[in-house]
């Protein structure tokens, strides 16, 4: 497998980036006067900054490396994670949920659950979310250390510790504002670092027509129709007709509704960016602004993977090929990194690697800032030291940042030692997350939903997810982590992804039904007054009449959905 040696110019580029990242934290340190400054940027950010941070906080290792790998493995169908699995949910959270998140003045998503339901529902969400952010941050660190060791021969320990210290420094100094400012910087770096890669790759394969023709050969060789890698919807009629092994209902309902709305509408990691906006209008526009670059991101992260697959099948002018494992499958995760070191000369290679590191670090910082807020507000202030001064909580936020980074480093080494443990943990978190959107949907749009209903509904949904996973397996499952661990297999799915989508559907449905039934048989504990600002029927919606028509959130939302529909039709 090819590896890269870096020249002095590459180190200079990486050095400039680190200098600016730390400089931003240093300049912002004087602004951190209260806990609201540190955890919520003093709710002062313009929409374009919170919008790009909303997108960038999600640009972790899984996004750039994972989507590139999926592009190689599944082709343009990977774009469903954007055009079906992100954009509609981003529009929904901006138009319909942000008025409650921002209007209630809740400082976090778990705190919203406390205001709307009760303490036990908040605690359940806060504890599971805090643990999840630590492991996500650790996985990001582990993936970066592993990648830099594989590609550049850098020492794993040094890579993990240097990235941890840099992220720690700029968050401790400048809090959420520093993380958000750096996420915007990282967004531009990722875009400008990957554009030449896509351009050179497309030139090498002969443009879109050349790519389509080469991927047609890849598809027919594997027994699919020629367009299986370059059409997004045409082959979703049956799971056996596409490389993803998913049919249209599982895709639309499992990914497009349950998983995507569950992530974009309830995950505090991204919602925190919108909560930092300077006004309700800016908070509503945050996810809508993020949706515009989000819908174009497949061109930056999926297309290189598709090009890597096309070149592997039929080498281009420069003879690129993905490495092959002993079992004959390709190492898809290396698609984007290997493309970088294949096409980029010294200089631009430094920029490409910096963009890659920026994506890992923005994912890490996003998780750590969400963790320190939930820890300080929802766990420490609620259950450990409730009546301390604001200065005390500001100091605790900084301590929580150090603790969060230290735990993330521990999680990175845990992942390095026991890869299956991380698979298992991610599976457990998926069980907890899948039903969450049902709780929020009922909480925000049904005044009769009760705290007991929400809490027991969440537990029922989590149990249903575990039960479904334990009774089903995907084709080719080699370990119990992949399913069937209850000893009886009731159904076999054509792919792991199909099993994940249907696990989410069962979890959401069970939570939705259980919450309704239990709410109807338990007493409502919140008065109408207490639900003001928290539930649709009790909350006046923000007025946007003073804005010109094209600046209104609803107009932007409709335009975003129309553009997304157009992209789906173009690549149908």
């Amino acid at each position, binding site marked *: 497998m090819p590896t890269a040696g870096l020249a002095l110019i590459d180190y200079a580029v990486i050095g400039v980036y680190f200098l600016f990242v730390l400089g931003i934290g240093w300049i912002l340190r004087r602004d951190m006067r209260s806990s609201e400054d540190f955890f919520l940027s003093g709710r002062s950010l313009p929409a374009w900054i919170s919008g790009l941070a909303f997108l960038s906080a999600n640009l972790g290792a899984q996004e750039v490396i994972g989507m590139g790998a999926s592009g190689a493995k599944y082709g343009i169908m990977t774009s469903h994670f954007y055009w079906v699995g992100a954009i509609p949910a981003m529009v929904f959270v901006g138009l319909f949920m942000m008025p409650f998140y921002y209007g209630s003045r809740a400082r976090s998503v778990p705190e919203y659950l406390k205001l709307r339901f009760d303490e036990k529902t908040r605690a359940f969400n806060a504890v599971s979310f805090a643990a999840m952010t630590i492991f996500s941050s650790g996985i990001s660190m582990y993936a970066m250390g592993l990648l830099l060791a594989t590609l550049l021969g850098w020492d794993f320990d040094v890579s993990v510790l240097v990235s941890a210290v840099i992220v720690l420094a700029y968050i401790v100094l400048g809090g959420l*504002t520093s993380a958000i400012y750096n996420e*915007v910087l990282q967004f531009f770096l990722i875009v400008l670092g990957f554009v030449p890669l896509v351009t050179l790759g497309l030139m090498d394969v002969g443009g879109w027509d050349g790519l389509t023709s080469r991927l047609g050969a890849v598809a027919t060789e594997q027994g699919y129709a020629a367009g299986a890698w370059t059409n997004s919807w045409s082959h979703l009629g049956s799971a056996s007709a596409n490389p993803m092994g998913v049919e249209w209902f599982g895709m639309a309902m499992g990914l497009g509704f349950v998983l995507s709305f569950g992530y974009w509408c309830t995950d505090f990691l991204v919602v925190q960016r919108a909560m930092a906006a300077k006004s309700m209008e800016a908070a509503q526009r945050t996810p809508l602004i993020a949706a515009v670059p989000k819908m174009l991101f497949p061109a930056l992260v999926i297309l290189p993977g598709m090009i890597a697959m096309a070149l592997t099948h039929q080498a281009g002018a420069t003879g690129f090929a993905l490495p092959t494992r002993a079992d004959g499958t390709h190492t898809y995760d290396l698609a984007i990194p290997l493309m970088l070191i294949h096409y980029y*000369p010294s200089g631009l290679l430094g920029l490409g690697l910096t963009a890659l590191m920026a994506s890992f670090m923005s994912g890490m910082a996003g998780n750590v800032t969400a963790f320190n807020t939930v820890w300080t507000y929802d766990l420490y202030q609620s259950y450990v030291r409730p009546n301390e001064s604001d200065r005390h909580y500001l100091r605790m936020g900084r301590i929580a940042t150090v603790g969060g980074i230290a735990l993330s480093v521990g999680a990175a080494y845990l992942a390095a030692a026991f890869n299956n443990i991380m698979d298992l943990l991610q599976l457990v978190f998926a069980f907890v997350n899948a039903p969450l959107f049902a709780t929020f949907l009922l909480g925000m749009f049904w005044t009769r939903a009760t705290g007991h209903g929400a809490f027991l509904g969440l537990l029922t949904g989590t149990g249903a997810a575990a039960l479904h996973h334990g009774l089903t397996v995907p084709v080719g499952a080699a370990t119990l982590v992949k399913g069937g661990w209850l000893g009886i297999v009731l159904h076999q799915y054509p792919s792991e992804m199909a099993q994940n989508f249907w696990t989410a559907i069962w979890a959401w449905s069970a939570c939705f039904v259980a919450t309704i039934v239990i709410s109807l048989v338990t007493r409502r504990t919140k008065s109408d007054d207490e639900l003001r600002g928290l539930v649709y029927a009790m909350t006046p919606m923000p007025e946007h009449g003073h804005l010109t028509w094209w600046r209104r959130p609803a107009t932007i939302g409709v335009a975003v959905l129309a553009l997304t529909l157009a992209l789906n039709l173009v690549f149908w």
Partner: protein
Amino acid sequence: MGHDLRWPIGAMFALLGALLAGYGLVSDGALYQRSLGVNVNLWWGLCLLAFGLVMLAFARRSARLNAPRPQST
């Protein structure tokens, strides 16, 4: 939080662009065989430099518009 983020974004990309374009001017042409013969350092460096300068120009214009005007009673 009165910091305009366009200053650091503009400064960083102008600096990175100048670094890459400068390196593109002095580096050996054989280096660019892997990038299909295109001197990507020079061309992309100039693009980054232009992007950085545009960002800085916007930040400067915004700072001027928002500056307190000199003073009437």
